[in-house]
């Protein structure tokens, strides 16, 4: 057995463990994307370190209502997310609502939005998971 193999094994364990974290955080997030909300079929994730900010660009259709669910780590409220329009006008931030893990948005017109996500605690690191669901009409 060579040192190289040990290194590969440690890498493998790290990857499996990181995937386990993503899985648990996704499950926490997914419990809010339930009927009448339907998932957009994608899972958005970003590995954040310290005060890094992840940016998510999304299109929301006019006349529709969406739910954004955003989570990190093992407890709710660990992720701060803010929604901006394309001109960077702040539309929403969950900081104003006790770091709520989800929020609904009703769009009158189709818009491009930027969703920013960062960890609540600036120390440490973790995956930011974001899910989007649209309301079935």
């Amino acid at each position: 057995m060579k040192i190289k193999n040990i290194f590969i094994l440690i890498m493998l364990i790290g990857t499996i463990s990181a995937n386990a974290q993503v899985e648990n955080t996704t499950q926490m997030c997914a419990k809010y994307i339930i009927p009448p909300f339907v998932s957009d079929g994608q899972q958005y994730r970003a590995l954040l370190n310290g005060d890094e900010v992840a940016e998510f660009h999304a299109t929301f259709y006019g006349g529709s209502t969406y739910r954004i669910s955003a989570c990190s780590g093992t407890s709710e409220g660990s992720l701060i997310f803010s929604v901006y329009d394309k001109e960077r006008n702040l539309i929403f931030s969950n900081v104003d609502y006790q770091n709520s893990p989800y929020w609904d948005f009703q769009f009158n017109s189709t818009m491009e939005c930027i969703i920013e996500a960062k960890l609540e605690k600036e120390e440490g690191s973790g995956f930011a998971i974001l899910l989007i669901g649209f309301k079935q009409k």
Partner: protein
Amino acid sequence: MIISRKVSKIVLFLFIMGVFSIGFYSCGNDDGTNGEETIDENIDKEIEDHGSTTLQFEGALFSIPSPYEIAFLVKNQRIDYNKEFLNPVNRSHNYVNNYKKALNLGVYGADLGYLNIYEQTPDAVSYFSAIKILSQELDISNAFNNETISRIEKNMGNKDSLLYIISNTYREADKYLKDNNRNDLGVLILTGGWLESFHILVQIAQNDKNPQIIKRIGEQKYPLENLITILNPFYNESHDYAKLIDELVELAYIFDGIDVEYTYIKPDVDVKNKLTIINSTSELVMSDEQLDMISEKLTEIRNNIIE
């Protein structure tokens, strides 16, 4: 020999520790201090080893709206069901490489959504069979596992449940491909789904100048830009990827001519219902000529995918 045995013991110890840390975490460590620290260490290791790649690729993410939203719009406009819009299910056997399989897994997913919303159960069963085979051939076993397949089959007549399960299944597939560094296929599934729903809109617009449908076609300008951004890192993956991206860029050039006038208006908040109402407006002007050009280019791209 002695050194080798010692190294083997270290490896065994690390492996056991790793399994314990994963097991401990998977069991749900809500208060987690020690477990979290172990995971943080592993994540730190991940950042060290792969972090730059992950952050470059995932740090700025671009989403594509669900094809099912388009299907709902079409149904709500009281537009009749038309099977001709869809990619015939018997073509599924023609797709021999992963590139075509992934694209058409997206195409058939959008078609299944359309069939489901119009409650065309017998056809939906055929399309689901094609999806099942393509997903197995692409080895997306985690998402399309036996339990999920069984749930889908049991809910074939239940429009709402089926839509929910299928959407979650596609999200699981997306996650599975990301977990396994197979995003090259994940982006193709997204592309196929978006193109097919766009194609359905364009087909309708050719026969019926429904203003809501035409407006939605013009609004594809945004997801198209996002899609190109998502696909771009795979440009050198193969000639097929490069050709697809080039074609989408050509389509985006046509969209560049469409004017969008955006006006910011302060949103309203309904705290009790955790709802923000976005009042900003976005007006889009598209000529008949631009619509024709978009239709023509889109048909060309789709034909290359489904043929």
